[in-house]
Structure formats: structure tokens, C-alpha cells
């Protein structure tokens, strides 16, 4: 099973090369494919929505459109952190049930767009819990730092899954 995964992953790794928007959550660096990113905005007032998991902070007004916002720290079961002037909301577009849906993700800070080549990417580690690692496309080693490449559709999609109309 492991070997099979390994060979599978290596062929997939080459598909992962491309541009990623990198951001940080605590000490860790992450990246999401820029094709999914719609915009980056500073954190603003979020209207809480009742009866939703705690990592769904609520909804915001994005130029007249109401979109849900989730807190990645909480989604990944990390400690809560107060929002400061570096906190940003990355608005991504993922595939909903019937149509594309825009969702915001609250992150500690946003870094830069990096062009990551296949050679710099390694398959995701097996951390034991498959649900966690399913969100990860791979690990990239860039400029001496490790970036965790996220599968946005999985992260956001499964987060909103039971809520998506």
C-alpha cells in the first residue's frame, strides 16, 4: 500500500508545480494554488452565523456579496489567535454543489507568490490521521523553508460540506 502510494504520488507531484500564494499560520508556512485565489483582503467585521461549527466564523460583505469565512487555525485545530493588523482573509473560489462558491479563509499573514517547481515538491507525509493529510497536496522546500501545499477544494469544501445548500 505504501509503495503504491509512493509511486502514485511521484507522478502527481509533477502536476503540482506552479504558482502558489504562501501564507502563515503560527510557525508554519502554507501555500494554495493561485488559480483558486480571487482576492486578499484585510480582516473586517464578521457577522456570526448561529448553528455552525466554530471554525466557520460567519459571513462578510464582499462588495455587496455575502460570503462565508472560515478560520484556518480553528479548522486545523490549532490555538486561537487574536486578529491583528497582519491578519488577512484570502478569498478563494471552490466548486460547490452546483456552482462555484467563494469562501474566505482567515490566516495570520500573507507572504508572497512563489513559483514552485516539481523538483521542490515532495509527497505529503503520512501523519496517521488520513483526514488531515487528505487536505495536503504535498510539501515544498523553498528558500530553505518548508511550505505545506493545501488542497483548497478539500479544506474549504469539506468544511462547508454539510452546510452547502
Amino acid at each position, binding site marked *: 500500500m505504501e509503495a503504491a502510494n509512493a509511486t502514485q504520488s511521484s507522478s502527481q507531484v509533477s502536476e503540482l508545480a506552479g504558482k502558489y500564494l504562501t501564507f502563515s499560520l503560527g510557525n508554519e508556512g502554507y501555500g494554495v494554488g493561485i488559480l483558486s485565489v480571487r482576492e486578499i483582503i484585510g480582516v473586517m*467585521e464578521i*457577522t*456570526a*452565523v*448561529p*448553528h*455552525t461549527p466554530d471554525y*466557520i466564523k*460567519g*459571513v*462578510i*460583505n464582499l*462588495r*455587496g*456579496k*455575502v*460570503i*462565508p469565512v472560515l478560520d484556518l487555525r480553528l479548522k486545523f485545530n490549532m490555538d486561537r489567535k487574536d486578529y491583528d493588523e497582519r491578519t488577512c482573509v484570502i478569498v478563494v473560489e471552490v466548486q*460547490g454543489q452546483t456552482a462555484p*462558491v*467563494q*469562501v474566505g479563509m482567515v490566516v495570520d499573514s500573507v507572504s508572497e507568490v512563489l513559483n514552485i517547481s516539481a523538483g521542490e515538491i515532495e509527497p505529503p507525509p503520512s501523519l496517521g490521521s488520513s483526514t488531515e493529510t487528505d487536505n495536503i497536496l504535498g510539501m515544498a522546500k523553498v528558500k530553505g523553508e518548508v511550505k505545506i501545499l493545501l488542497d483548497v477544494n478539500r479544506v474549504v469544501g469539506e468544511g*462547508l460540506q454539510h*452546510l*452547502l*445548500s
Partner: protein
Amino acid sequence: MAVVDKPLSDLLDEVALKILMIEPGDLSIVGELLELIERLLPGCAAADTPVVIQQMAAVFKGVLERLIMGELPDSAENYDLLGQCVTEMQESARKEGHPGAEVVARFCANMRKIGLLLEPEALVGTVAAASAEPAIAEDKAMVEEESAAAVQGQAPATAESDQGAIPDFLQDTDLLAGFIEEAFEHLESIEVNVLELEQSPDDMDIINNIFRPFHTIKGVSGFLNLKTINRLAHATENLLDDVRNGKRAMDSAVIDIVLTVGDALKSMVADIKDVLQNGPANYQDTDIRGFLASITQLQDGGDGASPGEAASAPEPDLAPEVSESDEAEPCEEEDVAAVALAVPPLAKAAQGAGSLPVPQPQATPAARPAADSGTKKIGASIKVDVEKLDALVNAVGELVIMQSLVRQNKLVSRIADAKLTKDFSQLTRITSELQRTAMSMRMVPIKQTFDKMIRLVRDLSKKSGKKVDLIMEGADTEIDRNMVESIYDPLVHMMRNSVDHGISLPAERVKFGKPETGTVFLRAYQKGGSMMIEIEDDGEGLNTRKIRKKAIERGLIGESDSLSDFELNNLVFLPGFSTADKITDVSGRGVGMDVVKKAVEKLRGKVEVQSQPGKGSLFLISLPLTLAIIDGIIVRVGSERYIIPTIAIQESVHPEPKNYSTVHGRGGNLMVRGELVPIIRLYEKFGVASTYTDPCEAIVVVVENEGRRRALMVDELLGKEEVVIKNLGGIDVPGVAGGTILGDGRVGLILDLAGVIAGNTD
């Protein structure tokens, strides 16, 4: 005359087109066709025209001449067959004069059907002898060569079989898509006009209005190689032409056929649409032979008396629309005494085409739009992509919000410049105007939905044997486009109800001193900020006693409960409620009314019924003018703001301790006007820290939803506003209907009361 050098294929295309245009009796086009064919004749044709085509042209010319002389029947079939011959000629041209034995054989077979004896050898021989006489092969050797040089065999895609050539009509998908759209429109207009025609069978204008779309459909479908559709449309067009020329009287038989053909065409076009979207895998061509047969029957046998006059009282057990031939028999026997001579040809038609509706000799129900919509406004209109329209409306919505944000900006509002203030007013005015116009673009007249009711009532009354008049008022009233689909089903339900349960059989009605024909009124109008739709019938009305009994049986009310008649009547909207003794396939299962109520409430509307036993019933639906905007009261709970739809609010109260009670120290009830109403603490429900926890310090808003009343506890009432509903970017949360952007740019949640109350049943 100058013979212009044209590529052969072009010329043949022209011939093909010309044949499409021919209408039996229209010899002028035949003349033009002849001219074209003459360019292909041996002797006149361009040097490189294949011999076989020249021969075919010669034969063609012969046939045409005989048609003109009347020696061969000048009929639609023959023109069709000629059309196929042209296809064979085109095939021959494609194969550069070596079409192969199969094509030649088909050409001859077609010619034979027209009435011309022709052998394949005649075409292939070098002698230009092929004409009306059966010819002997001059050059047998050549013939053998031809047939040996066999056949690229594949039936050319444009073969004549009725089994729809699948790749054929997919050649030009753009044109096809356009055709589909227009065909649907034509078919709709045909239906509306036919139903109008039933009221005034002699109105030539209406007959023309029906003829034209059939003609258009025939023409374009032929051009696009949609053979079955083309044939059926052509046949119907011929029938209508006979009516136009007085060769056939317009009677209920013709009307029924036209309606059935219309339905069949609709389904055929829908099939084509399906192929276009999903591929030809499931495509099945429709068998129209039955239709063609009965149309021919009507054309032949229909001379004489129209059966409309001798309408006897319709028998209740008349065969349903799609009847088998044997079921048709008993009816005819009963009718013989009363009905005019036209019955025999109708009976023939029924026998000939088993799956056609038996034309019933009874007065057909009337559907008259009331006088006020008589004058039709003809304005220019254009077709716009719905997506573009929605994008525009969204953008305007955002503009309005932005404009208001700017105005409310603290710094801006502090500027005491007169000109600035004036400019801002102007800006606001223009923005409002823009918003109004954008909103109105989403509105469509409810006429299209109402028109569908005409057909429905007609079919229902025929099926049930009752006579029903449908009078519509206010079809011009506009409704939000997004509501049109959703309102159709509830209306259909209620119509069925009225005809099925409300209106009684003509004999019964006469017994009660009512006119034989029942009337159903369908009205639409705007009242206040809502759109109202009324369905009123002059039937028996609701049986309040029966309702009470059923309700007690079902345990919905107690024996000793005293409800007003109005309240009792409105119990019919509860699930599973039906007092019908008999379940017809139309209604009676007790499913209808509560589904209607749910559908209407989903649209944020209300429905109620008023009734008078013996006089009739009135169903009243009120709907918001637009789904996009909701009128609500903004309330504050803690730091959050929510919007409660005004339509649900009964009153708001500052509770007094004497009215507030608890049970075992929990829950909370408020005495409002003599009734105990449970309190829902919104701060608890939404997990918000609120200013007050004691209802008597706070404010309570009494709301009603689906018959349940609750008192919602909030900190403060902030104001009443019309807000634009936006969905929550994809998430669906119970108790929350949507969100809106408030004046300060923040999002406010709009409450869904059904969800709020449901989540709180202790």
C-alpha cells in the same frame, strides 16, 4: 436565357430548396423548379455534369410536366418523394456521377411511388431515352459495370428512411439551437390561438395565425433535415390550408387534431433538444403515421356539417383523452341519436388512429381573457441573455449599497457644502431610478402562466364531463421572473381542485338553479406591496361540516373546540386533509392543498380560502412583489443585528411582569391578548451575549408562522426597512433565510421563522 455556369452542387441545393417551398396548388413555384431542372438536361447541362444526373433530370422534368398537366396528383406526398429524388441526385453529384446501384434504385423506387415506371438501367444508359416510358437498357455491359463497381454502400446520411438519421440534423448545431427556441415559441402561440379559435371558429385572422407558425416550422425543419417534424408540420399545414380555402370546416375534430399535433411536435422538439445537449444515444424517432392517417381522414371525410351544433349533455363517463378504439365505440352508440352526420368520419378517424383523442361532441369550455386586456400593446422587445440581465441587476444592487455607504460616511456627512448636498440628492435619485428599472426587468407578466391554465381547464373539463368557463383578469400583472416557475404548480393544483371538487356536473348545477356552465375566475392584481392571485369558482363551496368532522376524526381539533367557519375552512391546508369521498386521478388524495401552502410559503407568501356553501369558494394567494427584496424590522440582540420579515410580525410588546409566566422555573410564556405565547430567547438561540436576559426589560416581537405564534425576545428595535436578500454564499443554516447588507456595510442575518420556531419545540 443565359445559362449561368454554376457548380452542380449549388444548383441541386437550389432545387432542393425550391421543392421545400412548394405548396400543393402553387404552380408558380413548380414553374421555377422546372427552369432550374432544365439546366441539368442532356443538351443544356454543363459539360461536366454526370450523365446519370442528366438522366435523372430528364425524368424529373417529365414528372413535373405531368404534375402541371394534372396527369399526376399534385399532392404533398408526391412533392415529398420528389424531394427525396433530389437528395438522390445530390448524392450522385457527391459521388461524381457514380452513385452506385443503391442510390439509383432508390431514385427509381421513389419515382415509381409517384406513379412513374422507371428502371434503373434507363438512368445509367448513355441514351437520353429515359422518360415516361419504361425503358430498356441500351448498354447492359455498362449497367453491370456500374452495379459491380459497387456501392460505397453506406446509405447516405440523407437517406429517406423515417428512422431519424441521427448525424443528419446535427450538422448545424447553431441553427438547430435557434430553431428549437423558436419552435417552442411557435408551438405556444399555436396553442393559445387554437384555444381562442374554439370560441370563434370562423375568425380567419386566428386561423392564419395558426397556419403561419406551422408553415414556418415546416420550412425550417425541412431545411435542417428534421424529417419527421417536417412531415408532420407539413401535413397539418395542409389541413389548415384546406380550412382556409373553405374545403374543410373548422370544427372540434380539427381543433383536437391540431392540439394533439402541437403536443407531439413539442415533444419531438424536446427530443431534439435533448440530443443536442446529451448526444444521440437515446434518440428515438417518433412514429407519426397515426397522425398522418387521421389528418388525411379529416381532409377527406370532413365535408359537411360541423358537429359543434348538436352538442348533447356530455356523458360523465366519456373516454379519457388518449382512448383506445374499442373504448370509443360505446360513446358513439350513445351519441348517434343526438349528434350530426359528422360523427361517422370522426369515428373513422378514431378507428384509424388508435392513439388519438376521440373528438367529443360537446360544447368546449370557454377561456376568455376579460375585456380589459383586449387591446394588445405591441411594443418592440429584444431577447437578452438571462445571465447578462442578472449580472446587471446585481451590479445595480451593489451600486445602491455603495452609494448609501458613501452618504453615511461620517466625514462626508459633516461637509456642510450646499452644492455637495444637492449633488448627493441627485445621485440618490438617479440610483433609485436605476434600481427600480433594474428590478422591473426581472418582472414578467403572469400571462404566460395564466395561458397554460386555459389548456388545463379545457382538458380537465373534458375529462370530467363538466362544463367550465375560465375567465382571466389581470394577466398583464407582473411577477418576479424567479417566481414564475414556482407558482405554476400551486396554481395547477388549485385549478384542478376547483374543477374537480368545486364545480359540479351540469345536471347537478341545473338542479341547484345554477347555469350549466360553471365559471372559474383567475385574477391577478397588486395590492399594497404584494401581488395577489385569486382563484374563484361558483361551485358548491367547501363543506364546512364535513371538514369539521374530518378534522375531529384526524385529531386536529377537539369536539368541543369552537372554530369559526373561516378557520375550519382553512384547515384544508393541513397535510393529509381531504374530504373527497372518491379519489380521482386528479385529486382527492389529500395531498394537494398542503403542498400548495408550502410552495406559497416558500415564496414568502400566504394562502387562504373563503367559501360559502352552495355559492362557491375563493382561494386567495398573496405573494411578495419580488423575491429579492424583503420588508423587515431590524432588531438588535447584543452586538448582532437580525431582520424579522414584517409579514410574519403581529405586534411587538414591552412585556409586563404580570403577563410573564414560567413553568417549573423554565421556559417562558407571555400572555398576549388573552393567549399564552411561548417566548423564544434569541440570544440563547444564537449564542450571543445580549443586553437583557429578563423579558420584562427587553422587547418581545410576536410572530406567527404556519399557525404557530411565538414571542421573540430582542434587545432593541432598530427600524423598518426593505432589504435586499442575499444568500449566505452557499451555506444553509436552519433559522436563517439569508443575509443582507445593512446601511453601514455589515451583514445582517434574515431570520427564517419556520426554522427558528422548529428548533425550539420544547
